[in-house]
């Protein structure tokens, strides 16, 4: 894809290694990339806790036509825009991230615990997650 052209439209983004880091407008950016550069597939969404209360979300887009990869990264606090309206596979990824990192995706209607049982406290992959020996009362 054409980086210069892209930079013209979205000002607040910068290139860092292979990643494009954006500050906001996640939904718009990804929609723009999908429609204009044929990145038709979302390989995965990687979440990583930064340790300061923010979570880095990395969207790995893929263009089957050119066999080209693209990574878009954004730092979010508790909430992020859901891209499930653009990529259906994001529903699954966002569910997982909601469960393990506690990031709420606005616009994804299927958010609920995935691996952890309903009523589990905390989000296991956050760095400040406290493992405790208190057993869940399963009957509740």
């Amino acid at each position: 894809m054409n980086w210069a052209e892209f930079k013209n439209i979205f000002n607040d983004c910068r290139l860092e290694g292979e990643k494009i880091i954006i500050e906001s407008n996640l939904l718009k950016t990804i929609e723009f990339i999908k429609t204009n550069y044929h990145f038709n597939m979302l390989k995965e969404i990687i979440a990583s806790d930064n340790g300061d209360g923010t979570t880095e979300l990395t969207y790995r887009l893929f263009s089957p036509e050119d066999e080209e990869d693209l990574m878009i990264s954004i730092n979010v606090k508790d909430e992020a825009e859901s891209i499930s309206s653009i990529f259906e596979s994001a529903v699954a990824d966002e569910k997982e991230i909601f469960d393990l990192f506690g990031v709420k995706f606005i616009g994804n209607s299927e958010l609920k615990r995935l691996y952890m049982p309903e009523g589990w406290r905390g989000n296991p992959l956050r760095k400040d997650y406290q493992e405790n020996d208190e057993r869940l009362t399963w009957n509740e």
Partner: protein
Amino acid sequence: MSKLKLNLGPQHPSTHGVLRLILELEGEKISSCEPDVGYLHRGMEKMAEKLSYIQYLPLVDRIDYLAGFFYSELFCRTVEKALGIELSLRVKAVRVLLLELNRIASHLLWMGSFLMDLGAVSPFFYAFRERELILKYFEKISGQRMMNNYFVFGGLRRDIAFLEDVENIIKILPDKIRDYENLITENPIFIQRTKGKGILDKETAFNFGITGVNLRASGINLDFRKKDYLYEEIEFNPVVLDGCDAAARYKGRILEMKESIKIISQVLEILRLEKEFKQQLINPLNLTLPEGEYIQEIEAPRGLASIYIKSTGEKSPYRLKWRTGSYYSVNLLRNILKGAYLNDAIAISGSLDIILPEVDK
């Protein structure tokens, strides 16, 4: 008509493990499907953050116990790439050999259980008979049938041996695959059950992140082995079919097994010429990766598998994430089962080759 809510699983003969589908039925027609996973969650990603690299290595085979070599390879490869270790030709060839044997074993098991879902009992046993040959070989070289733990950072645990067994396997398999095809492929009931069932068109497949045979059976030539550095010396043609249905996915896997046999015979040729076994092993005890992010991909039997490691230079990864093919296939069930009948639903979910340990991680 009032709707009936049906819990398919987690204990159900044809959900292969512990997948739970919450179906809403009108008569026998499915109006909505909601997959519920997590019954086999082992916290693979959380464990990685606590363990050192060498401690985590034996666990990675267990992400998908039917195709353990792929995940082992993926993890070793990430470490090797990060540390700049080059593999010798023989080691690379051995890895391809084992990956492809593993792919055949995985597809054989899929074939057996898929036909079991369709109600044919015999192919299940026939498939297991041939899979047994491969597993016996794995046991011979690594001491383990499924969780082999044979690849290590920078090479192999020991040099490959008993190659005559592999020669025997690839001599037997084509005949057996022909037998399966005689029994199944032209069977009118099988055609009725699979032809035109579970249509997955290109757009939907991309949209749901489907990869692997399921994608190639929808007419898209996308095989990540083409860009894989292990497969540089090897010629093969990705199996691309344009049926888009369950029958095409079945056919695709059968053809892919044949393709794997071709790859194996090429590899055996390489191994015959390249006798020298040299590898550059590293001391794993104090292994740390340089700070940064590493992503590696591989074409596993159930689609694209990839690993993401974020390292801060510590003994264990700061964050490790797996991407597995089945996870997205399960998500696809929400869409693809809508409007199908209950007994077609079994055929469709079977044809996608979902394996639960991979989904739950």
